[in-house]
């Protein structure tokens, strides 16, 4: 697994950073020349994971959200989104579509979207310590790439 390019970003868990996180990840992924649909899929998945850090992990406090984006040889994107928030008690249950601990305006579809829009997702979490979501997606190779 050769890493061709990598960036690390961290920012405060303020909700107006949700769009910032999407912009950063897409600016980095652009060097692989993704299709508009691939880029939209990645932005959507990033938006879900970052929002979860803000509304669930750091519900009662201001915290820091960490993102690592890697471009792997062969055209794969790996995105890690990490918080040091409350953690998830039952990951299996949390990942079920429509499951939410918030009700109200949360649809309980964040994980379902991440699963459907990315090729792979792995969730690591420890109650009281935080959560790391690792997602991967292969970008279809087209004409010219910038490596």
């Amino acid at each position, binding site marked *: 697994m050769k890493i061709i390019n990598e960036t690390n970003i961290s920012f405060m868990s303020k909700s107006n950073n949700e769009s910032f996180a*999407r912009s950063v990840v897409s600016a980095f992924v652009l060097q692989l020349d993704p299709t508009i649909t691939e880029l939209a899929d990645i932005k959507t998945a990033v*938006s879900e994971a970052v929002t979860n850090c803000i509304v669930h992990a750091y519900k009662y406090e201001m915290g820091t959200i960490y993102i690592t984006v890697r471009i792997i040889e062969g055209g794969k994107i790996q995105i890690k989104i990490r918080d040091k928030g409350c953690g998830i008690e039952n990951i299996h249950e949390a990942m079920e579509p429509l499951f939410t601990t918030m009700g109200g305006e*949360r649809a309980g579809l964040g994980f379902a979207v991440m699963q459907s829009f990315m090729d792979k997702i792995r969730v690591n979490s420890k109650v009281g310590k935080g959560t790391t979501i690792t997602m991967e997606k292969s970008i279809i190779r087209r004409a010219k790439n910038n490596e």
Partner: protein
Amino acid sequence: MSVKISHENGKITAKLMGEIDHHTAKAMREEIDSEAEKIKPAVLYLDFSEVQFMDSSGIGLVMGRFRQMELLGGKLRVINVPEHLERIMALSGLGALGVLTNEGKVKK
């Protein structure tokens, strides 16, 4: 503005603009709800034609308005869903609520 609201014959149309995420959905929700509570419309149309991006907060926005319209005794209709949002709309199971229509479908 992130939502443009118009009404006619006891029906409200809320045209959502730009990107819908947890941050922007809040302002949209507040504007739509205050208008709906005032007018108590027979139908609330959520027009997605000008939505460039949405994540599941957009689904939450629809589900929340669905519940609100039930309380107010009216109906909710989602209209003009652009092609690029079809997958997330499909995934949401909103179809089962019967709020999605093909009225005035636009391509994006």
